[in-house]
């Protein structure tokens, strides 16, 4: 039996290595500086992913700015005041929201933001990513805060500190490393999302620094290049993938390295 179960593990690792080596080999041959700063051009004239990188960074930043305070706030609430029906409901809804297909979030933002505004925009894309981020950050924050020993709270309360001071100055700093790693993983997750951006942020062929205009992203650009008819587009898809996966794996491995003592 051990042979059989070990074979399953080996199979998964082999798949991972095959995927990563394809990305590395096919991606590295198409990457150059021009590709990294140029905008998409008609086939045959080169072109690159500069505007897509800018768009992805801008929308991820917007999502983080919105998602972080709400997610951390909700996580603190669930951990510190959440032992009642309201806390359990928020916890349950957060967990189910995490499992909802991201394309559904895209539809929701389309009806809420794109239809009233009359056009796709970076704002809509950022909001969609924020909604994906909030429950993930909330649940990680809750878990990390629950790890802070009660004796620390009691010691601070005994010194006369009000409860908000205890949470703000004692509990949150104690849990901050854990929360930070959770946030990093959430950022890695949303930077790989494509489906919620397809019809919220749409795409753009130009550098765009305004959130009220359609915005390009790495992932949507990969999708367009991958499904295009020309080989040169496919090469660009692999190159853009190398950038994206390199970033995401770096975050995952860094988080793993920083938290290695706890696992």
């Amino acid at each position: 039996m051990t042979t059989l179960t070990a074979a399953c593990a080996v199979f998964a690792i082999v798949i991972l290595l095959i995927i990563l080596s394809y990305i590395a080999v096919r991606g590295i041959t198409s990457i150059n500086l021009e590709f990294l700063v140029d905008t998409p051009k008609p086939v045959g004239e080169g072109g690159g992913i500069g505007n897509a990188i800018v768009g992805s960074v801008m929308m991820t930043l917007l999502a983080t700015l919105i998602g972080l305070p709400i997610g951390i706030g909700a996580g603190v609430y669930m951990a510190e005041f959440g032992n009642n029906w309201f806390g359990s409901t928020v916890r349950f809804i957060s967990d189910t929201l995490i499992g909802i297909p991201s394309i559904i979030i895209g539809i929701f933002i389309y009806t809420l933001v794109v239809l009233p505004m009359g056009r796709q925009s970076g704002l809509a894309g950022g909001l969609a990513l924020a909604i994906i981020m909030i429950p993930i950050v909330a649940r990680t924050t809750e878990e990390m805060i629950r790890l802070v020993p009660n004796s620390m709270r009691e010691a601070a309360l005994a010194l006369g500190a009000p409860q908000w001071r205890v949470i703000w100055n004692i509990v949150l700093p104690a849990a901050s490393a854990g929360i930070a790693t959770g946030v990093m993983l959430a950022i890695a997750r949303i930077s790989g999302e494509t489906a919620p951006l397809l019809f919220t942020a749409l795409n753009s062929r130009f550098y765009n620094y305004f959130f009220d205009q359609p915005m390009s992203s790495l992932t949507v650009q990969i999708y367009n290049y991958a499904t295009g008819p020309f080989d040169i587009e496919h090469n660009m898809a692999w190159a853009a993938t190398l950038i994206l996966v390199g970033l995401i794996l770096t975050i995952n491995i860094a988080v793993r390295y920083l938290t290695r003592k706890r696992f």
Partner: protein
Amino acid sequence: MSQTGTVGDKVFRVILFITAAIILLIVAVMIFMMVLNSMPTIRQFGFGFLTGREWKPALSEFGALPFIYGTIVSSLIALIISVPISLGIAIFLVEQAPKKIATPIAFMVELLAAIPSVVYGLWGIFVLAPFVRNYLGVFLENYLGWLPLFQGRLTGIGMLTGGIILALMITPIITAVVRDVFEAVPTTQREAALALGATKWETTQIVLGNASSGIAGAVVLGLGRALGETMAVTMVIGNSPQISASLFEPAYTIASVLAANFAEATDRLYLSALIEIGLVLFLVTFVVNALAKLLILSVTRGRASAKHT
């Protein structure tokens, strides 16, 4: 306690309460907006929308059955492939492998879950689809070709490839939850079995038995992921609204019809039809995820497992 303390506490608590309430608000508004925007087709087609087999937006004919069929079949293929493999990995990691090799292997399996869907799709188009066309499909046709499942035009783009790519994507998710569930089974159970003279494999079977509802939860969670997985499937399943017995033929899932058509749907009724299938997917995954959570909790009660979601 000082006055600023009590006022500060109240303000602080209200702010936190609001952030938590926002999560509930998001889901409530989500359901409201999607129902509101799918009213045109709900009114016009009623329940027939879900059982209709014709999808011709140009003629305003909207039947969602091909998408529901494609979603269910591709997810089933994914589960059939993924569940035994995931169970195998989890048993190996928790029950058999020494910690020194289990830790890096577990991390590498988790990395599979970190790869974005669109990247699986890219890999699927250029690596997996040719593999299915030239090797796997040919093999299945030769040995199991008497089944209607493995007959027909073999292009590499179709239901089978979609199911396989889904299987790869949900394997790390199912594995992670099953590992959690195994670790929640008390060590004393294993020691008791071993003390009674059970072999290592017999002991593992006892652990499996005790963890069974948690394993079911992991499978249901994987199902939820497979049902809603979008980009990778859209890129390899062929996107054709047909119901065919052959797994080689192209198909369509709910998520992929949304990804492929939503941006172009300008007609009010067409948009409403797409939002309504989105609503169906939303409700189904909501129920499936809730069920998974209840099943997993029945085994891991009290142990946090949000890190795998």
